[in-house]
């Protein structure tokens, strides 16, 4: 009848990758017991994950190709509820790569942990589906549902090791604090809706711009929404959940959480702050600058004393969120570009670092203590060298990709005249080098304490190879990747 009125070809084009992800996610839930009832065959479910990502990738590629020929290069679907642009495509590529790498590096870890269930792969896809809508949505309802789909999948994945006390505890803390922040965010949304009488970001932006500065209602909406979002990106003082959730979760899930969930939350943050909240930039810039410095301070100083590598990397990821927030404080095209480049390189180097920790998982050893890494150089030089590359990149040392991310953030800060912030941020790089070096020292100088060989499934080696290669390639020959980030800025 009036089919085309509610669901046009345009609408379909804007969400096709998400449809694929949801379809394959549901299919994996069913195939889990229909096709592969034997736990030993479960790793073949990976085929469906790869298939799902291929279909998603084709959809994304078509979107990208279509957008390249458009001016202005964007497409709105569902009456403006989702917006396809370079920004959304860029983020969705990050999510796709992260999900794929995490999926292939997981199965050996789960088998050793005796918790290899098919739902795991479904959850990875569902989480990615939620992220798709976080990067693409321009309506509060869509963004809210996307955020919750992602968060709920992550709650389950963090607590996936049901018999493990730490995993339970991590899931509980993540769930309670995550739901708490969702409450704040939803309250902020309700006030925004009341202000604008619409849930579209465009209308909300117009309504806010029409209000006087420091309007108490606008301030309430800004404050509650920001608290909810800062929770999600683990910025201080709302970072308390991150160390516990990162430490207790299965290592591949920690990798996914630290990379994809953070990128998706930043996509959301950028959509809001560069969109409807842009007219309030004079108000939120100083607040965000303060929060960014606080985040850098807490993340870097707390990381120094950690003996658990996952916990150390959790605090380091808190500090990375601080750097990215500085890009938002600069509030210019260079800053946004810096955040995108930072997120791209962060994806590869952080996934790589967690992949090495995943490889340390052996029968009875989680492999996330500094002790477990001792003497890795003598036993497994390949892993040790890769870890060195990832750590150098995380610290931001020049020949690696990590330098690039920090470079653009600093450039943006200098361009916008925030010299003080740039100096402080540079100083913290020195602190970061110190605690990353603790891991390096453990790997290269100390004697090995653990004789059992490290895990080395095909998927894990593949993940390590890809992340290691890209961390180096982006560092040495960055032009095509920078071009990708730049085209995604064009609105």
């Amino acid at each position, binding site marked *: 009848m009036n*089919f085309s009125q509610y669901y046009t070809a345009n609408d379909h084009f804007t969400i096709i990758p998400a449809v694929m992800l949801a379809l394959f996610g*549901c299919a994996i*839930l*069913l195939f889990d*017991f229909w096709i592969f009832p034997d736990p030993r065959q479960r790793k073949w479910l990976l085929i469906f994950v790869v298939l799902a990502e291929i279909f998603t990738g084709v959809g994304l590629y078509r979107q990208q190709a279509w957008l390249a020929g458009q001016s202005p290069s964007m497409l709105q679907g569902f009456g403006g509820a989702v917006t396809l642009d370079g920004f959304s495509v860029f983020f969705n590529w990050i999510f796709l790569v992260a999900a794929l790498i995490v999926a292939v590096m997981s199965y050996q870890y789960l088998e050793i942990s005796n918790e290899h269930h098919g739902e795991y792969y479904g959850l990875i896809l569902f989480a990615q589906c939620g992220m798709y809508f976080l990067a693409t949505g321009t309506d509060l309802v869509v963004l809210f549902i996307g955020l919750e789909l992602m968060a709920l999948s992550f709650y389950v994945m963090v607590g996936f090791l049901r018999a493990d006390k730490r995993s339970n505890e991590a899931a509980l803390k993540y769930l309670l604090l995550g739901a708490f922040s969702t409450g704040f965010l939803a309250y902020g949304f309700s006030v925004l809706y009341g202000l604008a009488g619409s849930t579209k970001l465009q209308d909300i932006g117009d309504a806010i711009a029409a209000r006087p500065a420091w309007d108490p209602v606008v301030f309430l909406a800004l404050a509650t929404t920001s608290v909810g979002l800062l929770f999600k990106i683990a910025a201080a003082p709302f970072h308390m959940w991150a160390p516990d959730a990162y430490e207790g979760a299965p290592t591949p899930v920690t990798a996914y959480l630290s990379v994809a969930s953070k990128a998706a939350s930043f996509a959301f943050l950028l959509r809001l702050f560069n969109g409807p909240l842009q007219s309030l930039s004079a108000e939120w810039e100083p607040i965000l600058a303060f929060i960014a410095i606080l985040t850098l301070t807490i993340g870097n100083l707390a990381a120094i004393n950690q003996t658990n590598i996952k916990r150390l990397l959790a605090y380091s990821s808190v500090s990375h969120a601080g750097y990215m927030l500085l890009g938002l404080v600069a509030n210019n095209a260079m800053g946004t570009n810096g955040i995108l480049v930072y997120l791209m390189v962060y994806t590869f180097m952080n996934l790589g670092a967690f992949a090495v920790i995943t490889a340390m998982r052996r029968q009875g050893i989680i492999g996330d203590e500094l002790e477990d890494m001792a003497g890795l150089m003598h036993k497994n030089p390949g892993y040790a060298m890769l870890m060195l590359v990832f750590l150098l990149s995380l610290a931001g040392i020049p020949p690696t990709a990590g330098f690039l991310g920090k470079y653009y953030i600093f450039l943006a800060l200098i361009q916008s005249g925030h010299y003080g912030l740039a100096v402080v941020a540079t100083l913290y790089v020195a602190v970061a080098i110190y605690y990353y070096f603790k891991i390096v020292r453990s790997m290269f100088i100390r004697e090995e304490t653990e004789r059992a060989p490290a895990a080395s499934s095909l998927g894990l080696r593949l993940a390590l190879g890809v992340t290691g290669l890209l961390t180096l390639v982006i560092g040495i020959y960055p032009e095509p990747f920078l071009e990708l980030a730049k085209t995604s800025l064009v609105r």
Partner: protein
Amino acid sequence: MRVIVNDMPNGYIPIFIFLALAISFPVVAIVAAKLIRPSAPSLTKLEAYECGIKAASDSRGRYTVRFYIVAILFVIFDVETIFLFPWAVRYRALGWFGVSEIAVFLGILIVGYIWAYKKGALEWV
């Protein structure tokens, strides 16, 4: 809003009558019983009534975990039906589009149901 204001006294009269009845019924019953019945209190009469059998334990004991699993499943499948209401209200206007949307929605829900069933979540072990 104005409509509601005008209707308010009339619309609420049945509720007030019902409220008065609801309060008076137990009060009248208890007072009447108190006046009529003979009074002979004893310890046995004050015990908790459990189908005439002697009370086995405190009522604040723990339930078996199965109840929680059923409760969890109930919550999710119960609340999901909320999405059927808007469709039911606009059933005619949405036409076949609405039907197909709901089919997609129910399809996803059924996948979840099959999954829960196959995982043995519905069995009372």
